[in-house]
Structures are given as C-alpha cells and as structure tokens.
C-alpha cells in the first residue's frame, strides 16, 4: 500500500556536527534582528500607537486611491495612509491619532465617513485612544515576558534546569527573530501579531518538549553511550514526527493564507515563519544548547528516585 513518507523509516543524520554552524547562523540572525529593530523600528499598528483605522469598499468598481488621497487629505487630519486591501475595491484608511481627547477621534471618523460618501461602504472602523494604546503596549510586552517565564518554570519542573535554560534560549531566539522579521518586512505590528508571537512560542516549545522528552528517555536507556550520540539518536527518532507535525500545521496555515481573507493573511504568514523557525530552533538551538551541558551526570544522580522505563525492567 502506498505511504507518503517525507522522512525515511530510519535516519542517521549527524545533527550534532552541525550545531556549531547553526549557533553561528542563529547568532547572526538574532543580532541582525536586534539591529533592524533598534535602527528601523516596527511598523506599529493603531493598537499600540493609538489612531483610527477604517476599512471601506467601493460599491461601483475599483476604488480610485488617488482621488481618495486628494479628498481625504483636505480634511486636515494629519498623517493619512490610504492603501488597497485585499481586493481592488477595498481600501484601508489609517489616520494618525488626533490632537485632543477621545471626542476629537470620533469627530475624525465622522468626517472621513461623510467625505467618503454613499458609494463607499464602511466595512470596519477601529479607534484606539491614547490611554488604551499605551496600556496595550505595556500589556503586550508583559504577556510575552510572562508567557516565556511561565513556560520556563514549567520545563524546569518537568525536566532538569539545563533543559529549562536551553528551551528558554531557543524560545527567545524564536521571538527575537520573529520581531526582526516584522521590522525587516514592515508588516504591521498589532495585537494579532502579539497573539502570533505567543502562538509561535507555544508551537516551538511544543516541538522542543517532544525532543527533550526523547533525550531524557534515551539518557536513561543508553547509559553506556556518549552524550553527543544520544542527542543524535533522539533527534533522528523524533525527526519523522517533527516533520509530520510541521507539515500538517503548515498546511492548515497555507489554507488561511490563500483562503482566509486579507485580515488574517499577515497573521498566517507570521505563523508560517514561526513554524519554520520553531522547528529549526527545537532541533538546532534547544538540543544544541543541551550539548553544552553534561547531562549524563545529572541523569545518573536522578536515577535513584526515578523509576526505570518499563522495557528496562523487562
């Protein structure tokens, strides 16, 4: 019977010799991400900057962006960005935060909707006031930090401290490079992006834990073998699963990219990147970090109070 197998039944890839190369590559990626982030910054959406967003659709054929720019530019609302969104009838209007209080923002929305007239159908308006904007930024940063911390503590409880540190380095790597991607591409960074980053963190840690689980098991099983060899065996044994899960998740995300509509596209693209970087980092960064520690010693010490796996008991 036919079986689709992206990974052969038994692989003997030597991952460990590539750890050094991966470490160099990832260091460059992380440094570049930080550089771009500090030098160029993120294209912050209205969630964090405060401001107004209006999505509109022209009911009589393609929208005339130049005409809109002229007409809305005259309203004297400061920085206005007008771009087409998804289909050519659809337009996204972004307006900077207005001077004054919340009433000024609402007045601006009304001015724009009045200027657009009846041939433009208002599909969505979002307005984030200055107070909320600052608060969302704070909460967003807090959410990412707390999620990382919570995950780290969980791994520490379930594994040894070395695993916890390795997982944390891998996760930070994923988060930093994802933020770097947003800085480079100038994709809008909004609340949904924070959700994407945290989901990437969740996905990546999921992957990492599966590999760690196997490493822990094999440390107990192959007592006579060297640590690098054990890491290699563990990675090869889980390789088929790693690829399977990455592909299924990627398939679901590709469906969103192509069919999910414009609002979800950026989110799904960020997640796709996350699946790629998360899979890479669990193999090369998380396990790569593990290779720096002497795990066998801790595993031996632990042996007295952990029951042996059943196949060793006979």
């Amino acid at each position, binding site marked *: 019977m036919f079986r689709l197998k992206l990974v052969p039944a038994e692989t003997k890839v030597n991952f460990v010799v590539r750890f050094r190369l991966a470490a160099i590559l990832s260091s460059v990626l992380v440094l570049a991400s930080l550089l771009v982030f500090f030098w160029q910054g993120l294209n912050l959406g209205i969630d964090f900057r405060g401001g107004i967003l209006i999505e509109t659709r022209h009911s009589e054929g393609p929208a005339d962006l130049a005409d809109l720019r002229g007409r809305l530019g005259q309203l004297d609302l400061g920085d206005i960005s007008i771009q087409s969104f998804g289909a050519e009838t659809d337009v996204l209007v972004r307006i900077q935060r207005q001077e004054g209080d919340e009433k000024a923002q609402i007045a601006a929305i009304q001015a724009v909707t009045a200027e657009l007239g009846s041939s433009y159908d208002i599909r969505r308006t979002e307005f984030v006031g200055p107070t909320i904007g600052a608060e969302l930024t704070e909460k967003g940063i807090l959410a990412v930090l707390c999620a990382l911390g919570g995950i780290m503590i969980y791994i520490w409880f379930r594994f040894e401290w070395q695993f916890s540190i390795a997982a944390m380095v891998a996760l930070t790597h994923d988060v930093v490079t994802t933020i770097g991607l947003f800085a480079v591409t100038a994709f809008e960074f909004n609340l949904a992006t924070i959700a994407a980053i945290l989901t990437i963190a969740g996905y990546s840690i999921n992957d990492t834990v599966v590999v760690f689980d196997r490493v822990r098991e094999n440390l107990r099983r192959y007592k006579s073998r060297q640590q690098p060899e054990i890491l290699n065996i563990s990675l090869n044994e889980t390789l088929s699963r790693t690829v399977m899960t990455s592909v*299924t998740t990627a398939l679901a995300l590709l469906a*969103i990219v192509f069919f999910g509509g414009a609002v979800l596209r950026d989110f799904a693209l960020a997640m796709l990147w996350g699946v790629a970087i998360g899979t890479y980092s669990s193999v090369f960064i998380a396990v790569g970090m593990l290779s720096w520690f002497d795990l066998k010693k801790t595993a031996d010490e632990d042996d007295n109070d952990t029951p042996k796996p059943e196949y060793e008991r006979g």
Partner: protein
Amino acid sequence: MQAVVAEKMVGLADSLRLSFREKRLRFRALEAGGEQVRFGLRDAEDLPVLEEILAAYAQDYDLTEDGLNRSLRFSEAGLAALRTQTVEQAIEIIRRRLDPDGTKEPVIQRQGADRVLIQLPGVDDPERVKSLLGQTARLTFQLVDLRSSAAEAKAAGRAPQGTQLLEAADGSGELYLVERRVMVSGDMLENAAPSFDQNNRPAVAFTLNAVGAKKFAQVTGANIGRPFAIVLDGKVVSAPVIQSQIFANGQITGNFTIQESNDLALVLRAGALPAPLIVLEERSVGPGLGADSIAAGTLAAIVGLILVMAYMIASYGLFGLFATAALAVNIILLLAALSAIQATLTLPGIAGIVLTVGMAVDANVLIFERIREEFRRGRRIQAAIEAGYSRAISTIIDSNLTTLVAALFLYVFGSGPVRGFSVTLALGIITSMFTAILVTRMIVVLWHNASRPKSLEL
C-alpha cells in the same frame, strides 16, 4: 470619576453640616472643593464630639488635621468602593439603554478599575449607540430667573448668587439664566415616552412619581406665567412658560427629530448615568465584512481540514483514517464547547480553530510514530499499540500543557480579539488531547479486535 467624587463631596459636606448642627458643634468654613471637604472648629472643646461624629466616616475617608482645621478625602478603600458602585450602576443603566427589551444579548462587562466593555452584535448604526451612551441624561427642571437677564449676567462676567448661566442644547449659543435650585429632577420620573406636541412636532411625554408630582404641582402652581428651563446634561432643551399648574404629566418639547425624541425617552426611562462615559476604544465590523470574513474563514478552515486529513491518510493509511475521524469529533466538540460558553466567533477565533486543526493531529502523529517504532523493535502488534499509546501520553501532556500556558497568558493579558483567539486555542488543545488519545484508541482497539491483523499497515 472626578465628577462623581466632586459630587459625593458636596453630599458629604451637606451630611456633615446636618450632623454638626444636630450635635451643636461650632464649626466654620465648611465647604466641598474638588476631591475634599474642608472645615474648621471654632473651639477645641468640641474635639471629642467631632471625633464621635467622624468615627462613622473613618472607613471610607482619610482625615487630615492641621490645628483646628480638618479636611476629609476618600481613602483608597472608599474610592475603590465608590468606583465599584459607580461602574456597576453604569453597567445597569447601559444595559437598560441598549437593550430595553432584554432581547439583544449585549455583553456588558466591567474591565479593570473603571472601564466597561460593551459588545453588541448585529447593530446597523454604531453612531446611534454612541449617541445613546454619550449622554449622561441628567434631567432637571429649573425656574428661569427673571430678576436679571442672561445678557446682563454675561456682561457682568458672572451669574448672580443662586443662579447659573446655561447654554441652549440646540447649539444656537443662546444663554439662559436659571435658578440653581432644582424643582424636579430625572430620578423622580416614573415613565417617559415619545409623543407629539400640539403642533405635531416630536416631543417626549413624561410621568412623575408621587414625590415629584407633589413638588412639581407646588412649584408650577406658585409660578404661573413664569418660564422654567428643562435642562438635560447642563444644557437647556427648552424653556416653556408655565400656563397652568402641572401635576404628574408633562411634555418636553424642543427641536427634536422623531429618532431623537425616541432616544431621549429611552435614556430618560433608563435613568441617568452616574458619570459621563468616554469612549476609549471602538471596533466595529460592518455586516458586509462580517459575512465575507466569516465565509473566508470557514472556507480556510474546510480547505485546511481537507488538506490535513488527506496528508494524514497518505502518511498513515488506515490509522490516518482513524485520526481524521478523531479530528472530525474534535472539531464538533470544539464548536460545541465554544457555543456552550457563548463565545463570540471572531476572525482570530476562526484562525485559532484552523491552527488547532493543524496542531491537533500532533498527538496522533506522536502515538503513531511511537507505535511504528515499537513495532520495528520487534514487538507484536497489540503490544506495539499498547506501548505506543502509553509512552506517547506523557510527551503529549507535557507538550500540550506548555502550549496551554502560552494560551493562558494570551487570555490574561490579551484584550478583545486576542482573547477570543486564546479561548479557541485553549479549548482546541483540551478537546484534541481528549479525541487524539481516547477516541483514536477506542477505534484502534475496536478495529484490532474485529480484524485481528497479522501485519501492521502503518
């Protein structure tokens, strides 16, 4: 909140003045200013009496002493209690304004210390919602002062003692000089309904309760021929002349449209908000986009589901089919759980479902890979299946719990759409653990017992 505190301080000053007089305490300069009430004692002899009086206020207020002068302001606890009370009152009134019949199922929740989150599905006109929420709807009837005129007061720069200058509500800039004393206020209303005046223009008819009617009859009876102002949120709606004594029933006229008279009647019935509301954040989705994006999201979910199922069957054959059956159960459970908790299905929520579809099969992948491995190591089929499930479970729990940790933080720190996403993600993790572990296992065992396979087609 400041306005509420200032108002409470005026009330506090009044009640202190009463208690002081009752106990014959000699005081001076008792006044409410901003967020505190200040007063002084004339004689130190009165200190024990004062202490006795103030004991009742100790819980909600902080006392500052300076010689014989005292000032009271809200303590942290008092302020927190006031905030809670104010927000809860506001929520009740918002509900009555937005959903007078109790059929629209709006979500109105307190968020943080002094915020309210309102979600209204299926609203055609978001501007109207804002105008309903935008007015405090504090209604008062005050006599127009005739001893002096609005123009004189404006020229003098201030209104004479006991009066105040108010603008007209229609934006004409016309000014009225009215007495500060309130004849009747909105909390004495029993009912309000849209109606028409004698010229057939939209108006609002009202009925006062017993207390209000008595007071109103008394004042109107004594002031026939004088105009009185109908004041809404500090602005004069109209100032009709009292033609005859008015009892419980009256009418508010002004330059209303039908919609405006309907809305005014509605907000008057619902009662005044304890404090003005400020819109901090607003997101609205038009019906067109809502339908489009739900359709797109559903299409994406179905395509994703088919792709993942096809890939699973291509990779694991019969076992892949088992996994897709479990996946179908998973989706049904997830949707059931979402509707059980009345979650609003948002776009990020759909993304969460699609992502769950991708990740849900992970548990099955772990189990199947493990079974394959055990089988290759030379175990019999049944033993391999047994071992595959039992060994994979700890891995599955570890990896899913960590993702659940991330979802938890998304929920705690996220707001709006991000929360919706975290809820679907978390529910998806829980249902997928259940279906991938228990449902597939049941199917696999049934299959094994029925067909007794000799070799493992995995």
